[in-house]
């Protein structure tokens, strides 16, 4: 297993802390994470009901029982990244290098890395807790996927379908991703893409 030291942000102190990026997990590891994350999501939803707090900002995938998707996941040939800290998965992402091509010029039609799945642990999300534990999890996972694109000689080209959440879309835009448009072939989800130049700007730490 390839493990790379990275830093993430501890929210309470607003300081960078050491963590580990695992780069060759198996799709089944998503299920292990779900076994830990799922009950926390359910409890958060139940707590909101008890306090009559709104539930409409919970992530749309919070109803998704991953454990029941095990058989489907086994057929997906993917790379899975995970960030580990305190012995727990803080966030996971799954990418593929087949089946998706760039749509933005100057590289339209060329291969890219496509992010199929990206998620942070519920204790790191404001939707589930007022005091998230760690931040920049999505940033690190997005960075890992963009670096995978460099390794594949795709020059940073990267694509993903975001669920239509304004905050999430804002994060991708501020990272330099371009909203290509609504993809009617994928449930009407907005499709975002990194061009070579935008990805390399993101990786170098420049302002998007």
């Amino acid at each position, binding site marked *: 297993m390839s493990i790379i030291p990275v830093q993430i942000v501890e929210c309470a102190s607003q300081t960078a802390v050491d963590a580990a990026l695992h780069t060759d997990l198996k799709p089944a590891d998503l299920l292990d994470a779900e076994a830990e994350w799922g009950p926390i999501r359910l409890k958060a939803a139940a707590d909101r*009901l008890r306090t009559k707090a709104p539930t409409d900002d919970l992530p749309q*995938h919070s109803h998704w029982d991953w454990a029941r998707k095990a058989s489907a996941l086994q057929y997906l040939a993917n790379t899975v990244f995970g960030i580990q800290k305190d012995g727990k998965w803080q966030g996971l992402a799954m990418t593929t290098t087949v089946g998706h091509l760039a749509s933005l010029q100057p590289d339209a039609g060329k291969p890219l890395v496509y992010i199929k799945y990206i998620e*942070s642990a519920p204790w790191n999300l404001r939707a589930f807790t007022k005091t998230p534990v760690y931040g920049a999890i999505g940033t690190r996972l997005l960075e890992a996927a963009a670096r995978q694109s460099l390794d594949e000689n795709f020059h940073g080209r990267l694509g993903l379908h975001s669920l239509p959440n304004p905050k999430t879309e804002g994060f991708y835009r501020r990272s330099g991703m371009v909203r290509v448009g609504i993809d009617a072939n994928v449930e009407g989800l907005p499709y975002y893409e990194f061009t070579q130049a935008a990805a390399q700007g993101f*990786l170098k*730490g420049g302002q998007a």
Partner: protein
Amino acid sequence: MKTKMNNSQEWLLRKAAEEDNCPLSVGGLTHELGVRPVAGPPVPLAATALSKLVELRRRELGMSVEQLAEGSKIDVAEVVSIEEGIRLNPEPRTIYNLAGTLRLSSKRLMELAGLVEVRDEKFSRATVKFAAQSEPMEKLTKEEREALQEFVRFFAEA
């Protein structure tokens, strides 16, 4: 990984602030695995509630999976996949027929299946509460029966 991860703390803190612990989304895998976002505001845990409702209501009415499938003119495999939560984007016809056999409001069941927009906050809350109940057992417990009956009332009111 051939290139080094960015080790600038200034960059990391800035990106963390931009990300602001927002959900990152599941994205394209939802489509690949047959899960689609609903047209309107999402009902949290609706898919879980749908699979549990179909199974518990069937058992409450003393029906087998085969009887439910036959009565609804759909495949046994489809009933199983709905109850197991494997098929989360059933066809409108399937949901309409299931509602008839299970004696539930087809409008409400369509809402639960994500086929039409939900505008009722009370129903949305009831869905989350029902979905968050314990897993179904072989025989309905007193608590499960009460939870089912409470939720089913929404299907009579619609």
